[in-house]
Protein backbone atom coordinates (compact mmCIF):
# COMPACT_ATOMS: atom_id res chain seq x y z
CA UNK A 1 0.00 0.00 0.00
CA UNK A 2 2.78 2.38 0.92
CA UNK A 3 4.53 1.63 -2.34
CA UNK A 4 1.34 2.34 -4.27
CA UNK A 5 0.95 5.74 -2.66
CA UNK A 6 4.53 6.69 -3.42
CA UNK A 7 4.05 5.55 -7.05
CA UNK A 8 0.98 7.76 -7.27
CA UNK A 9 3.00 10.67 -5.90
CA UNK A 10 5.73 10.09 -8.47
CA UNK A 11 3.23 10.09 -11.33
CA UNK A 12 1.58 13.29 -10.13
CA UNK A 13 4.90 14.98 -9.52
CA UNK A 14 6.28 14.08 -12.97
CA UNK A 15 3.02 15.11 -14.63
CA UNK A 16 3.23 18.54 -13.01
CA UNK A 17 6.81 18.93 -14.20
CA UNK A 18 5.81 18.06 -17.79
CA UNK A 19 2.83 20.39 -17.54
CA UNK A 20 5.02 23.32 -16.45
CA UNK A 21 7.39 22.53 -19.29
CA UNK A 22 4.51 22.44 -21.77
CA UNK A 23 3.11 25.75 -20.52
CA UNK A 24 6.55 27.35 -20.69
CA UNK A 25 6.87 26.03 -24.24
CA UNK A 26 3.44 27.38 -25.26
CA UNK A 27 4.20 30.87 -24.00
CA UNK A 28 7.86 31.08 -24.94
CA UNK A 29 9.00 33.16 -27.87
CA UNK A 30 12.13 31.08 -28.44
CA UNK A 31 12.60 29.10 -31.58
CA UNK A 32 11.20 25.58 -31.35
CA UNK A 33 14.62 24.19 -32.23
CA UNK A 34 16.17 25.92 -29.21
CA UNK A 35 13.42 25.23 -26.69
CA UNK A 36 11.50 22.12 -27.70
CA UNK A 37 8.24 20.81 -26.25
CA UNK A 38 7.97 17.66 -24.10
CA UNK A 39 6.54 15.87 -27.13
CA UNK A 40 9.58 16.77 -29.25
CA UNK A 41 11.96 15.62 -26.53
CA UNK A 42 10.03 12.37 -26.27
CA UNK A 43 10.26 11.87 -30.04
CA UNK A 44 13.99 12.48 -29.83
CA UNK A 45 14.19 9.87 -27.10
CA UNK A 46 12.36 7.36 -29.30
CA UNK A 47 14.73 8.21 -32.14
CA UNK A 48 17.77 7.66 -29.90
CA UNK A 49 16.41 4.33 -28.71
CA UNK A 50 15.57 3.39 -32.32
CA UNK A 51 19.02 4.01 -33.74
CA UNK A 52 20.75 2.40 -30.78
CA UNK A 53 22.84 5.46 -29.84
CA UNK A 54 21.16 5.82 -26.44
CA UNK A 55 21.88 2.27 -25.37
CA UNK A 56 25.44 2.53 -26.61
CA UNK A 57 26.05 5.73 -24.63
CA UNK A 58 24.45 4.37 -21.49
CA UNK A 59 26.66 1.30 -21.73
CA UNK A 60 29.78 3.42 -22.11
CA UNK A 61 28.83 5.74 -19.24
CA UNK A 62 27.87 2.92 -16.92
CA UNK A 63 31.16 1.16 -17.53
CA UNK A 64 33.05 4.29 -16.54
CA UNK A 65 30.80 4.96 -13.61
CA UNK A 66 30.94 1.44 -12.17
CA UNK A 67 34.72 1.22 -12.60
CA UNK A 68 35.43 4.63 -11.06
CA UNK A 69 32.88 4.43 -8.28
CA UNK A 70 33.54 0.93 -7.00
CA UNK A 71 37.33 1.12 -7.23
CA UNK A 72 37.17 4.38 -5.30
CA UNK A 73 34.81 2.95 -2.65
CA UNK A 74 37.08 -0.06 -2.11
CA UNK A 75 40.28 2.00 -1.83
CA UNK A 76 38.65 4.67 0.36
CA UNK A 77 37.06 2.17 2.76
CA UNK A 78 40.27 0.16 3.19
CA UNK A 79 42.32 3.32 3.72
CA UNK A 80 39.65 4.70 6.04
CA UNK A 81 39.65 1.55 8.16
CA UNK A 82 43.42 1.79 8.53
CA UNK A 83 43.52 5.54 9.22
CA UNK A 84 40.57 5.31 11.58
CA UNK A 85 42.67 3.08 13.83
CA UNK A 86 45.72 5.34 13.57
CA UNK A 87 44.54 8.75 14.81
CA UNK A 88 48.14 9.96 15.12
CA UNK A 89 48.78 9.31 11.43
CA UNK A 90 45.39 10.71 10.46
CA UNK A 91 46.32 14.00 12.14
CA UNK A 92 48.74 14.49 9.27
CA UNK A 93 46.52 13.04 6.54
CA UNK A 94 43.45 15.02 7.57
CA UNK A 95 44.76 18.50 6.56
CA UNK A 96 45.65 17.04 3.16
CA UNK A 97 42.18 15.59 2.77
CA UNK A 98 40.54 18.80 3.95
CA UNK A 99 42.60 20.79 1.43
CA UNK A 100 41.78 18.53 -1.51
CA UNK A 101 38.16 17.80 -0.65
CA UNK A 102 36.56 21.18 -1.45
CA UNK A 103 38.18 21.29 -4.88
CA UNK A 104 35.58 20.40 -7.47
CA UNK A 105 36.75 17.30 -9.32
CA UNK A 106 36.12 19.16 -12.59
CA UNK A 107 38.92 21.55 -11.65
CA UNK A 108 41.29 18.63 -12.12
CA UNK A 109 39.88 17.96 -15.56
CA UNK A 110 42.37 19.86 -17.77
CA UNK A 111 45.21 18.29 -15.82
CA UNK A 112 43.73 14.82 -16.10
CA UNK A 113 43.16 15.21 -19.84
CA UNK A 114 46.76 16.36 -20.26
CA UNK A 115 47.98 13.30 -18.39
CA UNK A 116 45.60 10.62 -19.66
CA UNK A 117 44.26 11.99 -22.93
CA UNK A 118 40.67 11.73 -24.12
CA UNK A 119 38.69 8.54 -23.48
CA UNK A 120 37.50 6.37 -20.61
CA UNK A 121 40.23 7.27 -18.14
CA UNK A 122 39.46 10.96 -17.44
CA UNK A 123 35.82 10.19 -16.62
CA UNK A 124 36.85 7.28 -14.40
CA UNK A 125 39.44 9.42 -12.60
CA UNK A 126 36.91 12.21 -12.00
CA UNK A 127 34.40 9.76 -10.54
CA UNK A 128 37.15 8.25 -8.45
CA UNK A 129 38.03 11.67 -6.98
CA UNK A 130 34.38 12.62 -6.46
CA UNK A 131 33.73 9.38 -4.54
CA UNK A 132 36.99 9.15 -2.68
CA UNK A 133 36.87 11.95 -0.10
CA UNK A 134 33.33 11.55 1.22
CA UNK A 135 33.82 7.79 1.59
CA UNK A 136 37.29 8.11 3.15
CA UNK A 137 36.23 10.73 5.69
CA UNK A 138 32.99 8.99 6.63
CA UNK A 139 34.89 5.71 7.11
CA UNK A 140 37.51 7.33 9.34
CA UNK A 141 34.85 9.01 11.44
CA UNK A 142 32.77 5.82 11.55
CA UNK A 143 35.74 3.88 12.92
CA UNK A 144 36.34 6.60 15.50
CA UNK A 145 32.71 6.49 16.58
CA UNK A 146 32.57 2.75 17.23
CA UNK A 147 31.12 1.97 20.64
CA UNK A 148 34.24 1.28 22.76
CA UNK A 149 32.53 -1.74 24.30
CA UNK A 150 33.01 -3.69 21.05
CA UNK A 151 36.74 -3.10 21.29
CA UNK A 152 36.77 -4.01 24.99
CA UNK A 153 34.92 -7.26 24.28
CA UNK A 154 37.32 -8.01 21.39
CA UNK A 155 40.36 -7.48 23.62
CA UNK A 156 38.80 -9.68 26.27
CA UNK A 157 38.13 -12.50 23.83
CA UNK A 158 41.59 -12.24 22.30
CA UNK A 159 40.52 -11.07 18.84
CA UNK A 160 43.59 -9.65 17.14
CA UNK A 161 44.28 -8.03 13.80
CA UNK A 162 43.42 -8.70 11.02
CA UNK A 163 40.35 -10.50 12.39
CA UNK A 164 39.56 -7.48 14.56
CA UNK A 165 39.04 -5.32 11.47
CA UNK A 166 36.77 -7.58 9.49
CA UNK A 167 34.99 -9.25 12.38
CA UNK A 168 34.38 -6.22 14.58
CA UNK A 169 35.53 -2.81 13.35
CA UNK A 170 34.17 -2.96 9.79
CA UNK A 171 30.74 -4.34 10.72
CA UNK A 172 30.43 -1.98 13.69
CA UNK A 173 31.27 1.01 11.51
CA UNK A 174 29.33 -0.20 8.51
CA UNK A 175 26.05 1.70 8.92
CA UNK A 176 27.90 5.02 8.96
CA UNK A 177 30.24 3.95 6.15
CA UNK A 178 27.20 2.98 4.07
CA UNK A 179 25.89 6.48 4.60
CA UNK A 180 29.03 7.96 3.07
CA UNK A 181 28.98 5.46 0.20
CA UNK A 182 25.40 6.42 -0.50
CA UNK A 183 26.05 10.17 -0.47
CA UNK A 184 29.04 9.70 -2.75
CA UNK A 185 26.90 7.90 -5.33
CA UNK A 186 24.92 11.02 -6.15
CA UNK A 187 28.04 13.17 -6.34
CA UNK A 188 29.82 10.65 -8.52
CA UNK A 189 26.93 10.47 -10.96
CA UNK A 190 26.89 14.27 -11.26
CA UNK A 191 30.58 14.37 -12.06
CA UNK A 192 30.37 11.55 -14.58
CA UNK A 193 28.45 13.88 -16.87
CA UNK A 194 30.91 16.70 -16.26
CA UNK A 195 33.82 14.37 -16.95
CA UNK A 196 32.36 13.12 -20.20
CA UNK A 197 31.51 16.60 -21.40
CA UNK A 198 35.19 17.54 -21.33
CA UNK A 199 37.27 14.41 -21.50
CA UNK A 200 35.42 11.97 -23.73
CA UNK A 201 34.08 11.38 -27.22
CA UNK A 202 31.31 9.04 -26.08
CA UNK A 203 28.84 8.53 -23.26
CA UNK A 204 25.85 10.48 -22.00
CA UNK A 205 27.86 13.60 -21.12
CA UNK A 206 29.40 13.69 -24.55
CA UNK A 207 25.99 13.25 -26.12
CA UNK A 208 24.92 16.52 -24.50
CA UNK A 209 27.87 18.36 -26.04
CA UNK A 210 27.23 16.62 -29.34
CA UNK A 211 23.56 17.63 -29.31
CA UNK A 212 24.56 21.21 -28.58
CA UNK A 213 27.02 21.24 -31.49
CA UNK A 214 24.29 20.00 -33.80
CA UNK A 215 21.73 22.37 -32.29
CA UNK A 216 19.50 19.44 -31.36
CA UNK A 217 17.94 20.78 -28.17
CA UNK A 218 15.38 17.97 -28.25
CA UNK A 219 18.14 15.33 -27.99
CA UNK A 220 19.83 17.44 -25.34
CA UNK A 221 16.75 17.53 -23.13
CA UNK A 222 15.99 13.87 -23.74
CA UNK A 223 19.53 12.99 -22.62
CA UNK A 224 19.19 15.14 -19.51
CA UNK A 225 16.01 13.23 -18.64
CA UNK A 226 17.77 9.90 -19.14
CA UNK A 227 20.62 11.03 -16.86
CA UNK A 228 18.11 11.96 -14.18
CA UNK A 229 16.24 8.68 -14.46
CA UNK A 230 19.41 6.58 -14.28
CA UNK A 231 20.45 8.62 -11.23
CA UNK A 232 17.20 7.74 -9.50
CA UNK A 233 17.52 4.07 -10.42
CA UNK A 234 21.11 3.90 -9.11
CA UNK A 235 20.05 5.55 -5.87
CA UNK A 236 17.14 3.12 -5.50
CA UNK A 237 19.35 0.09 -6.15
CA UNK A 238 21.90 1.20 -3.57
CA UNK A 239 19.17 1.93 -1.06
CA UNK A 240 17.86 -1.60 -1.60
CA UNK A 241 21.31 -3.14 -1.16
CA UNK A 242 21.89 -1.04 1.95
CA UNK A 243 18.61 -2.17 3.47
CA UNK A 244 19.40 -5.82 2.80
CA UNK A 245 22.82 -5.57 4.38
CA UNK A 246 21.55 -3.60 7.37
CA UNK A 247 18.91 -6.24 7.93
CA UNK A 248 21.65 -8.85 8.01
CA UNK A 249 23.32 -6.57 10.56
CA UNK A 250 20.64 -7.36 13.06
CA UNK A 251 17.03 -6.74 12.29
CA UNK A 252 17.21 -3.03 11.47
CA UNK A 253 15.59 -1.56 8.39
Amino acid at each position, binding site marked *: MKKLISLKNVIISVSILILIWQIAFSFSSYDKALFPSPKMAFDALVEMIGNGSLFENIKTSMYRFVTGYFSSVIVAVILGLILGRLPKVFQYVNPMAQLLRPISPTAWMPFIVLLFGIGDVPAIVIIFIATFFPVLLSTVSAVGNIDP*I*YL*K*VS*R*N*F*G*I*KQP*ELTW*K*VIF*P*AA*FPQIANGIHLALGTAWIFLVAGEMVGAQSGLGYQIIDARNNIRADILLATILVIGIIGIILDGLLRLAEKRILR*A*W*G*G*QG
Partner: protein
Amino acid sequence: MYIEVKDTCKNFVQDGKEFTALDHVSLDIDKGEFICLLGPSGCGKSTLLNALAGFEKVSSGSVKIDGKEVTAPSINNITIFQNYGLLPWRNVLKNVELGLESKRIGKEERRKTAQKYLELVGLSGFEKRYPKQLSGGQQQRVAIARGLAVDPDIIFMDEPFGALDAITRMKLQEDILRISREEKKTIIFVTHDIEEAVFLADRIVVMMADPGRIKSIVTVPLGSHRDRTSKDFLYVRDKIFELFNMKSESYIEYYI
Protein backbone atom coordinates in the same frame (compact mmCIF):
# COMPACT_ATOMS: atom_id res chain seq x y z
CA MET B 1 46.17 -16.48 47.33
CA TYR B 2 44.59 -16.87 43.92
CA ILE B 3 43.91 -13.18 43.36
CA GLU B 4 46.12 -10.68 45.17
CA VAL B 5 45.61 -6.95 45.20
CA LYS B 6 48.38 -5.32 47.21
CA ASP B 7 48.48 -1.68 48.29
CA THR B 8 47.04 -0.53 45.02
CA CYS B 9 46.41 3.11 44.10
CA LYS B 10 44.81 4.55 41.02
CA ASN B 11 44.81 8.28 40.31
CA PHE B 12 43.05 10.07 37.49
CA VAL B 13 43.45 13.64 36.38
CA GLN B 14 40.04 15.00 35.53
CA ASP B 15 39.53 18.63 34.48
CA GLY B 16 42.96 19.46 35.86
CA LYS B 17 42.12 18.05 39.27
CA GLU B 18 43.67 14.92 40.62
CA PHE B 19 41.18 12.33 41.70
CA THR B 20 41.94 9.22 43.72
CA ALA B 21 39.82 6.30 42.52
CA LEU B 22 41.68 3.72 44.59
CA ASP B 23 43.57 4.61 47.75
CA HIS B 24 45.89 1.87 49.04
CA VAL B 25 43.50 -0.99 48.39
CA SER B 26 44.48 -4.53 49.37
CA LEU B 27 42.34 -7.60 48.82
CA ASP B 28 42.85 -11.35 48.61
CA ILE B 29 40.42 -13.68 46.87
CA ASP B 30 40.34 -17.47 46.88
CA LYS B 31 39.64 -19.67 43.90
CA GLY B 32 35.90 -20.38 43.55
CA GLU B 33 34.78 -17.47 45.71
CA PHE B 34 31.83 -15.28 44.82
CA ILE B 35 32.91 -11.75 45.74
CA CYS B 36 30.72 -8.67 45.54
CA LEU B 37 32.31 -5.23 45.37
CA LEU B 38 29.65 -3.04 46.93
CA GLY B 39 29.58 0.71 47.28
CA PRO B 40 28.23 4.04 46.08
CA SER B 41 29.29 5.55 42.76
CA GLY B 42 32.81 6.95 42.87
CA CYS B 43 34.04 4.40 45.40
CA GLY B 44 36.35 2.80 42.87
CA LYS B 45 34.59 -0.56 42.60
CA SER B 46 34.51 -0.48 38.82
CA THR B 47 38.08 0.83 38.71
CA LEU B 48 39.18 -2.08 40.87
CA LEU B 49 37.31 -4.51 38.60
CA ASN B 50 38.85 -2.97 35.47
CA ALA B 51 42.30 -3.25 37.04
CA LEU B 52 41.69 -6.93 37.83
CA ALA B 53 40.33 -7.57 34.35
CA GLY B 54 43.35 -5.87 32.77
CA PHE B 55 41.48 -3.01 31.10
CA GLU B 56 43.14 -0.36 33.26
CA LYS B 57 46.61 -0.10 34.71
CA VAL B 58 46.98 0.87 38.35
CA SER B 59 49.14 3.81 39.39
CA SER B 60 50.99 1.91 42.12
CA GLY B 61 50.87 -1.36 43.98
CA SER B 62 50.31 -4.73 42.36
CA VAL B 63 47.41 -6.77 41.00
CA LYS B 64 48.20 -10.46 40.61
CA ILE B 65 46.11 -13.38 39.42
CA ASP B 66 47.52 -16.87 40.02
CA GLY B 67 50.88 -15.31 40.84
CA LYS B 68 51.13 -13.32 37.62
CA GLU B 69 50.91 -9.54 37.35
CA VAL B 70 47.83 -8.46 35.38
CA THR B 71 48.85 -6.29 32.40
CA ALA B 72 46.20 -6.92 29.75
CA PRO B 73 42.80 -8.60 29.39
CA SER B 74 42.92 -12.34 28.96
CA ILE B 75 40.48 -14.83 27.50
CA ASN B 76 40.83 -16.77 30.79
CA ASN B 77 39.07 -13.97 32.67
CA ILE B 78 35.88 -12.79 31.01
CA THR B 79 34.12 -9.54 31.83
CA ILE B 80 30.34 -9.20 31.59
CA PHE B 81 29.29 -5.57 31.04
CA GLN B 82 26.17 -3.71 32.05
CA ASN B 83 25.30 -2.94 28.42
CA TYR B 84 25.97 -6.54 27.33
CA GLY B 85 28.47 -5.81 24.52
CA LEU B 86 26.81 -8.18 22.07
CA LEU B 87 27.64 -7.68 18.41
CA PRO B 88 24.33 -6.61 16.82
CA TRP B 89 25.23 -7.93 13.35
CA ARG B 90 25.71 -11.47 14.66
CA ASN B 91 22.88 -13.73 15.67
CA VAL B 92 22.76 -15.25 19.14
CA LEU B 93 24.64 -18.41 18.19
CA LYS B 94 27.36 -16.46 16.38
CA ASN B 95 27.71 -14.12 19.35
CA VAL B 96 28.28 -17.01 21.71
CA GLU B 97 30.82 -18.50 19.27
CA LEU B 98 32.86 -15.27 19.19
CA GLY B 99 35.44 -16.24 21.81
CA LEU B 100 35.62 -19.82 20.54
CA GLU B 101 36.67 -18.51 17.14
CA SER B 102 39.80 -16.89 18.51
CA LYS B 103 40.53 -20.11 20.39
CA ARG B 104 40.73 -21.76 16.93
CA ILE B 105 38.03 -24.29 17.71
CA GLY B 106 36.41 -26.08 14.74
CA LYS B 107 33.00 -25.15 13.40
CA GLU B 108 31.11 -28.21 14.64
CA GLU B 109 32.63 -28.04 18.08
CA ARG B 110 31.92 -24.30 18.33
CA ARG B 111 28.28 -24.80 17.53
CA LYS B 112 27.95 -27.63 20.04
CA THR B 113 29.64 -25.67 22.82
CA ALA B 114 27.60 -22.56 22.10
CA GLN B 115 24.36 -24.53 22.16
CA LYS B 116 25.34 -26.18 25.43
CA TYR B 117 25.81 -22.82 27.14
CA LEU B 118 22.72 -21.29 25.57
CA GLU B 119 20.81 -24.17 27.11
CA LEU B 120 22.48 -23.50 30.47
CA VAL B 121 21.24 -19.88 30.44
CA GLY B 122 17.79 -20.97 29.24
CA LEU B 123 17.95 -19.68 25.68
CA SER B 124 17.70 -22.84 23.59
CA GLY B 125 15.75 -22.10 20.43
CA PHE B 126 16.96 -18.48 20.25
CA GLU B 127 20.06 -19.30 18.17
CA LYS B 128 18.93 -17.53 15.02
CA ARG B 129 17.61 -14.39 16.73
CA TYR B 130 19.51 -11.13 16.68
CA PRO B 131 20.33 -9.19 19.87
CA LYS B 132 17.87 -6.42 18.93
CA GLN B 133 15.05 -8.96 18.97
CA LEU B 134 15.76 -9.95 22.58
CA SER B 135 14.84 -8.32 25.88
CA GLY B 136 17.57 -6.85 28.07
CA GLY B 137 17.55 -9.87 30.36
CA GLN B 138 17.84 -12.25 27.41
CA GLN B 139 20.70 -10.22 25.97
CA GLN B 140 22.58 -10.42 29.24
CA ARG B 141 21.99 -14.19 29.27
CA VAL B 142 23.57 -14.38 25.81
CA ALA B 143 26.55 -12.39 27.10
CA ILE B 144 26.87 -14.77 30.05
CA ALA B 145 26.70 -17.80 27.73
CA ARG B 146 29.34 -16.19 25.52
CA GLY B 147 31.58 -15.70 28.53
CA LEU B 148 31.08 -19.23 29.87
CA ALA B 149 31.64 -20.78 26.43
CA VAL B 150 35.39 -20.05 26.52
CA ASP B 151 35.57 -21.79 29.92
CA PRO B 152 37.20 -18.92 31.83
CA ASP B 153 38.68 -19.23 35.33
CA ILE B 154 37.26 -15.94 36.55
CA ILE B 155 34.16 -14.01 35.53
CA PHE B 156 34.12 -10.30 36.20
CA MET B 157 30.69 -8.72 36.25
CA ASP B 158 30.35 -4.92 36.14
CA GLU B 159 26.86 -4.09 37.41
CA PRO B 160 25.53 -6.65 34.96
CA PHE B 161 21.90 -6.42 36.01
CA GLY B 162 21.84 -2.65 36.54
CA ALA B 163 19.79 -1.97 33.43
CA LEU B 164 17.17 -4.64 34.10
CA ASP B 165 13.81 -4.42 35.83
CA ALA B 166 13.52 -5.77 39.38
CA ILE B 167 11.80 -9.07 38.55
CA THR B 168 14.17 -9.93 35.69
CA ARG B 169 17.09 -8.96 37.90
CA MET B 170 16.04 -11.37 40.66
CA LYS B 171 15.61 -14.20 38.16
CA LEU B 172 19.07 -13.56 36.74
CA GLN B 173 20.57 -13.37 40.23
CA GLU B 174 19.20 -16.81 40.96
CA ASP B 175 20.55 -18.13 37.67
CA ILE B 176 24.03 -16.68 38.12
CA LEU B 177 24.18 -18.14 41.62
CA ARG B 178 23.21 -21.58 40.26
CA ILE B 179 25.67 -21.28 37.36
CA SER B 180 28.51 -20.21 39.65
CA ARG B 181 27.97 -23.33 41.77
CA GLU B 182 27.57 -25.70 38.81
CA GLU B 183 30.48 -24.33 36.79
CA LYS B 184 32.71 -23.66 39.83
CA LYS B 185 33.90 -20.26 38.63
CA THR B 186 35.46 -17.49 40.63
CA ILE B 187 33.13 -14.53 40.28
CA ILE B 188 33.81 -10.91 41.09
CA PHE B 189 30.65 -8.91 40.88
CA VAL B 190 30.33 -5.13 41.10
CA THR B 191 27.05 -3.74 42.39
CA HIS B 192 25.59 -0.83 44.32
CA ASP B 193 22.57 -2.89 45.36
CA ILE B 194 22.96 -4.14 48.95
CA GLU B 195 20.33 -6.85 48.61
CA GLU B 196 21.91 -8.13 45.42
CA ALA B 197 25.27 -8.38 47.18
CA VAL B 198 23.81 -10.23 50.17
CA PHE B 199 21.94 -12.61 47.89
CA LEU B 200 24.98 -13.51 45.79
CA ALA B 201 28.22 -13.12 47.66
CA ASP B 202 30.35 -15.39 49.79
CA ARG B 203 32.10 -12.21 50.88
CA ILE B 204 31.06 -8.60 50.37
CA VAL B 205 33.79 -6.01 49.92
CA VAL B 206 32.22 -2.78 51.15
CA MET B 207 33.81 0.26 49.54
CA MET B 208 33.60 3.99 50.24
CA ALA B 209 34.16 7.03 48.06
CA ASP B 210 36.50 10.05 48.29
CA PRO B 211 38.99 8.53 48.12
CA GLY B 212 37.91 5.11 46.86
CA ARG B 213 38.85 2.55 49.48
CA ILE B 214 37.75 -0.67 51.16
CA LYS B 215 35.82 0.01 54.35
CA SER B 216 35.33 -3.55 55.42
CA ILE B 217 34.93 -7.07 54.15
CA VAL B 218 31.85 -8.95 55.29
CA THR B 219 31.63 -12.71 55.07
CA VAL B 220 28.06 -13.72 54.35
CA PRO B 221 27.20 -16.67 56.58
CA LEU B 222 24.27 -17.85 54.45
CA GLY B 223 24.23 -21.22 52.74
CA SER B 224 23.91 -22.00 49.07
CA HIS B 225 20.16 -21.65 49.15
CA ARG B 226 19.25 -18.06 49.93
CA ASP B 227 15.83 -16.75 50.78
CA ARG B 228 15.42 -13.00 50.43
CA THR B 229 12.71 -12.93 53.08
CA SER B 230 14.38 -15.11 55.73
CA LYS B 231 15.45 -13.66 59.05
CA ASP B 232 19.13 -14.40 58.48
CA PHE B 233 19.08 -12.69 55.14
CA LEU B 234 17.50 -9.56 56.55
CA TYR B 235 19.93 -9.59 59.45
CA VAL B 236 22.97 -9.57 57.14
CA ARG B 237 21.35 -6.92 54.98
CA ASP B 238 20.80 -4.71 58.02
CA LYS B 239 24.44 -5.14 59.06
CA ILE B 240 25.55 -3.86 55.66
CA PHE B 241 23.12 -0.95 55.89
CA GLU B 242 24.66 -0.05 59.23
CA LEU B 243 28.12 -0.09 57.68
CA PHE B 244 27.11 2.56 55.22
CA ASN B 245 25.74 4.77 57.96
CA MET B 246 28.78 4.45 60.24
CA LYS B 247 31.28 7.27 60.28
CA SER B 248 34.19 5.15 61.49
CA GLU B 249 37.16 5.11 59.17
CA SER B 250 38.55 1.91 60.62
CA TYR B 251 39.11 -1.15 58.52
CA ILE B 252 37.02 -3.98 59.90
CA GLU B 253 36.87 -7.58 58.74
CA TYR B 254 33.46 -8.86 59.73
CA TYR B 255 32.46 -12.38 60.59
CA ILE B 256 28.83 -12.72 61.50
